[in-house]
């Protein structure tokens, strides 16, 4: 490949870093610069909560030691980009410095949504996305917070609630929807999570919106008013009603943007040699039927970076994500999903099988099409094997075949309760099918946990 082309990546999150790493693997000659004002070294954004709760130090969230970047000749530039001169192919930093590029990758991620609530910029009101947000949250919750309110029931909201619980700060959790995260989770799963949130003594208020944030005389939050007019005294407010592409510095330029930077399926923007990946990219059309125009997940960011790096060094291929997967952890309950499980479905087209353990903390759902082939699964409180579920969905296994192999799909540690036997049993009763129930091994019978 070209000997000295300079590829500049704005943003050192998972998309930008994956892109840089794969570029280096494919092209040993290119000059690669990775820019971030947030943090010199790449860190795992999803792990910020663990730093707050004392599970890790910030440096533990950095997947690569400092020598890694030097060894792979990836230049790190700690600066904020103020402006891009697309015609002159150069960047202007807030320091006044400039940097020329041959190819530009925009991977600037997201920022927390703010919907124009009165008082949203008061002291003690914040989102949680960046390293700076974490530092701010540590400062904001250091003392004098008797209660906190969290607005918006998504993954960051529940993380924030868990973080505040660590500091023994009582939390009121305002969620607009009827059920927790019910724009993603079906009713039963949403209820399962809601119950668990309450088990942790978090005051979860469903179908409740934020109307206004009230200030004390020092410009600090003192209370929130909800949509039903209730005033809840609180000294900290977390705004976690989703995120939006972080591209303000690119608006009103020749670059075509909408909510995010507009790209085609090759991550190509309207300007040659300028690309966008990760949270900040907006596809002209969704990359697959069950996908959205903007993909704001760790895993998709990684795939974007992987694919674009390949495209910058080879004959470009269109971005084709495979079977969808995702995971999260709600306080103590782990969640994984493989394939397509929307919150609601047309019952004439889609058959749902749902099993829940008596504890109310473990469940499994499988959706099948009208011919009984698997579309996707949700599993809570136990783990499933990605490779096997990916294959099952890709090869359109029948529900019965999935059940027959459920023991092999199980990814829980050894000696854990074999929930799969109960699931198989329930499937046989409700749906039927010709498969044998898995048997406990002798060792499992002797020492293992029981369901």
């Amino acid at each position, binding site marked *: 490949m070209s000997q000295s082309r300079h590829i500049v990546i704005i943003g050192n999150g998972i998309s930008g870093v994956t892109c840089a790493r794969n570029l280096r693997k494919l092209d040993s000659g290119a000059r690669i610069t990775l820019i971030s004002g947030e943090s010199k070294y790449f860190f795992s954004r999803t792990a910020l909560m663990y730093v707050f709760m004392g599970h890790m130090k910030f440096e533990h969230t950095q997947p690569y030691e400092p020598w890694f970047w030097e060894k792979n000749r990836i230049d790190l530039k700690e600066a904020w980009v103020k402006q891009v001169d697309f015609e002159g192919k150069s960047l202007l930093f807030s320091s006044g410095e400039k940097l020329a590029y041959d190819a530009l990758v925009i991977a600037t991620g997201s920022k927390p949504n703010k919907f124009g609530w009165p008082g949203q910029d008061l002291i003690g009101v914040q989102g949680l996305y960046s390293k700076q947000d974490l530092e701010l949250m540590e400062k904001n919750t250091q003392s004098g917070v008797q209660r906190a309110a969290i607005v918006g029931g998504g993954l960051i909201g529940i993380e924030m609630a868990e973080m505040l619980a660590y500091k023994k700060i009582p939390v009121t959790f305002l969620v607009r929807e009827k059920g927790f995260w019910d724009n993603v989770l079906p009713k039963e799963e949403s209820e399962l999570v809601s119950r668990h949130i309450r088990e942790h003594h978090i005051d979860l208020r469903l179908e409740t919106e934020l109307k206004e944030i009230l200030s004390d005389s020092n410009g600090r939050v003192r209370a929130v008013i909800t949509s039903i007019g209730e005033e809840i005294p609180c000294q900290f407010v977390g705004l976690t009603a989703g995120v939006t592409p972080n591209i303000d510095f690119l608006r009103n330029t020749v670059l075509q943007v909408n909510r995010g930077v507009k790209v085609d399926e090759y991550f190509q923007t309207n300007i040659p040699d300028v690309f966008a990946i990760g949270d900040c990219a907006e596809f002209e059309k969704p990359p697959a039927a069950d996908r959205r125009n903007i993909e704001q997940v760790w*895993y998709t960011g990684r795939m974007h970076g992987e694919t674009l790096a390949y495209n910058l060094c080879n004959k470009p291929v269109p971005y084709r994500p495979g079977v969808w997967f995702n995971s999260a952890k709600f306080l103590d309950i782990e969640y994984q999903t493989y394939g397509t499980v929307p919150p609601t479905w047309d019952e004439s087209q889609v058959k749902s099988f749902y099993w829940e353990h008596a504890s109310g903390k473990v469940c499994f759902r499988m959706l099948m099409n009208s011919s009984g082939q698997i579309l996707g699964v949700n599993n809570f409180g136990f783990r499933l094997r990605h490779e096997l579920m990916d294959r099952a969905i890709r090869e359109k296994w029948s529900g019965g075949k999935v059940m027959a192999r459920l023991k092999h799909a199980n990814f829980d540690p050894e000696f854990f309760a074999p929930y799969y036997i109960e699931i198989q049993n329930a499937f046989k009763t409700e749906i039927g099918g010709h498969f044998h129930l898995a048997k406990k091994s002798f060792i499992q019978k002797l020492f293992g946990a029981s369901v």
Partner: protein
Amino acid sequence: MKGIEKLGLGLFLIGLIVFLIIPFLGTYTLSEDLVLAKTKDIHQEKMAEILEPMYGKEYGSSFSFLAAFGENFGTYNDQLKSQQLWDQVIWDDYSFALAFSALQSPVRENPWLYFGLSIGLAVLGGFLYNFRQYQNEPAGIKNNGIFHSSLKNKGLIGMLTGSFLILFYVVLYWFPAYLVNLVWMVSPISEILSGNPASQWFLYGLIYTLAIIVMGIRMFRKYRGNKYQQLRTASVMFFQTAFAFLIPEILVLLNQPYFDFKNIWPLDYDFFYDYQISAFLSGGGVGMFMLIWGILLIIVGVPVFTYFFGKRWYCSWVCGCGGLAETVGDPFRQLSDKSVKAWKYERVIIHSVLVLAVVMTVVTIANYFSGFSFLGNVTNQLHSFYGFAIGSAFAGVVGTGFYPFMGNRVWCRFGCPLAAYLGIVQRFKSRFRITTNGGQCISCGNCSTYCEMGIDVRWYAQRGQNIVRSSCVGCGVCSAVCPRGVLKLENGPEENRINDLPIIIGNDSIKINL
């Protein structure tokens, strides 16, 4: 902290303080009869003469007694040494035996009372503190605040704890004569088990076992809901109590050789020493069984079990050092160094110790079969060097004393020759691996942070690669702390155990022909 936990902590601290005060109690009076009774025939006459100035004098503390002993005894030896009369020098160290018998103290009079007030209170307090931890919380990962803790994140309390442990080990190994009160205190227990008075090693074994049990209870609470952790904790508690502590003592009671059936050469570095071999050979059928059992463990047990289960079958389910690390050491697991640099040091040091242990043993055996004509003196020098540098300083002082500084597996990771041997088998011929669950890793770093062996688990997991590392002891904590269900300890076919995924599962854009 609730009332009962505060009470527990209070009792533990009182017990600890009493334990620390006990060595300073009582007086020491030496008589000729005692000296004659406690020294070897060949030294009796000489020792009785050397120590004559001390007879009948009452020394108020172990310090003054041992100072006087050192002065008299040292003067005699130094004189001989300066005249190079090496064969007349008395090399035996009688300080412990003489201090032990010269002691008059309330502890010696009332051992059970002092035992109750020190170790008893500490154990009771530890139990009360631990037995209902997290009672009103759902089961789950309990790592809150670890890096905000002074004890667990190298703060002042951590430094003090580490210094205390180091001091304890130094005194235990090299100055046990200062601990005779404590040894008298546990002597009645030793009498019950083996019919013999206690030694400092019995004292150590007792404390070690009790510590594993009390902190094992903590593990049961901390990892509630995680059967793997529960079972392996129960396993190390059992093997320590039964195999390392009780059975060897009972064997002595039955007039059989003292033997720990689960200790394996080269961790058990003196297994092939001449005095061990003669103990086995003179031990009749039982002794012969011990010898064969020990050799079978080395040449069959280690490779076969490690092939099927990985080295975890030993390191985190059976081993005594592992047992202490996994219970008492668990609060410090996050302090291990994860850098590549540390890994480089680890490989050089641990394999050097293995080579040293093997060379020493080969020389010992050659010497034995040549009727002690081959390198006779060198063997002894090697033994004393190894015993001092590796057996005591590395495994004991550094291995445990450094828990609060470098994590709970310093010895297992950098020093244990058996771990090195198990690790070679695990790396090259085993069905064990930690499977990475496709593309689910989010690089958060919990796995690497809580890996006691300092393995950068995330390095592999975020690439979708399985983790196959010689040092992994299979504690399973990476799998437990992973928030996305990415890691699973498994035994499976060797094929594809080490995998490489250029494109992580879930991305169909790029087709690569492998």
